[in-house]
């Protein structure tokens, strides 16, 4: 007790000790708060809405593993919408990743006539613009957006901005290996890359930079 009181008295009198205590407290706060803040920042990238029936389910392009397409087909089978949209890009060797995605969705039970394709989806903004055009052409007013969890909030922000009069609902691919996982993302090399790139992409989207 006496030692504690003496320490407190010393802290009160010595400026150096006071600054030292502040520095230690700051370092401890950084040590304990950083993981919490980093986890929060990653979770903030995700947007998931409650399931709603819509005109179309859109599997955003760019997933090499095709888990977005798999999820879109799953939602279609559950009856959340009548149509499915897939996207992709063409390569100089004459193939199109969207075609492969379409074949995959068909193999999961979605009839060919219910699948529509958006071509040259080089980035989210280009894809959102093409989706708006397709929705106008087909007379669709609502869509369920299926994408990777890390991409879900930005994808929603972008499509809602590109097509202000329509309704969009987010139903991302569940997190967990091999998909991106927000919890302790900094401990896994691939998740770090995805998360950092997503933050950079958010910055680019918000300032309206490269398109």
């Amino acid at each position, binding site marked *: 007790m006496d030692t504690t009181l003496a320490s407190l008295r010393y802290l009160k009198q010595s400026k150096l000790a006071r600054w030292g205590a502040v520095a230690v407290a700051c370092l401890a706060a950084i040590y304990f708060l950083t993981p919490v803040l980093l986890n929060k920042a990653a979770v903030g990238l995700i947007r998931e809405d409650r399931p709603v029936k819509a005109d179309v389910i859109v599997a955003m392009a760019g997933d090499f593993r095709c888990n977005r397409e798999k999820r879109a087909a799953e939602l279609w089978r559950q009856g959340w919408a009548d149509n499915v949209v897939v996207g992709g890009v063409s390569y100089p060797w004459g*193939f199109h990743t969207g075609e*492969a995605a379409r074949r995959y969705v068909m193999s999961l039970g979605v009839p060919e006539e219910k699948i529509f394709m958006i071509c040259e989806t080089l980035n989210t903004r280009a894809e959102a613009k093409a989706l708006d055009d397709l929705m106008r052409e087909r007379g669709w007013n609502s869509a369920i957006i299926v994408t990777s969890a890390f991409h879900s909030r930005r994808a929603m922000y972008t499509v809602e901005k590109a097509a202000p009069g329509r309704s969009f609902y987010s139903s991302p691919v569940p997190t967990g290996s091999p998909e991106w996982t927000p919890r302790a993302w900094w401990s896994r090399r691939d998740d770090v890359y995805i998360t950092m790139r997503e933050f950079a992409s958010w910055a680019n989207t918000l300032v309206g930079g490269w398109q």
Partner: protein
Amino acid sequence: MKKLRRKWAYRVLISLGLLAVGCIALFFALPSLLIAPASVAKSDVILYGAISKHSTADKYIIDLYRQGAARKIICLSSQVSRDLYPGDYARESLISQGAPAEDVISLRLPIAPCGGVALTKIADFVKANGWKSALYVTDPEDSRYSGSLARRFFEREGIALAVSYSPEDREELTRDWRRTHWKTQRMLGEAMIIILDRFYSECR
């Protein structure tokens, strides 16, 4: 006290300003930092790793093959959509341009967390086939970093490695790159990869 605070505020502002200038300078210097001079050496095999959407390296590869730079070509790719490997198509394209089918192989790689993991698999494949030297043709922005990384992995297996890229790809990538989304994305992506790989032992 006020004076001291102002002094510190100036110091912080100057440091932030210098940091911003440094970042901008680094950004503008990205092409020269990332792209190494191409080096072509006669090898046992050409490793065709520049198979991407914006690549036009097919012509370069077939020219190298015709000039006798190597006897075999391996097209390297991991899947870009369900069961879709661009390397399979690049192989067909090289065959249609005159390369004998038995000399062109498509090597399907798993989706790897970083280049280091993929390079280990490529080096194992080259070693398993008894080849002692390889010419790695990659994307220009990948040439300096992947070049040095691949050299380390290959030399560990006793394989000599030269790293090159298509001059057309380099010209296209560096033309007006700061104004084009995919070009800037590739440059910044590569810079990010280099920084991140330092922290993860499986990628170094």
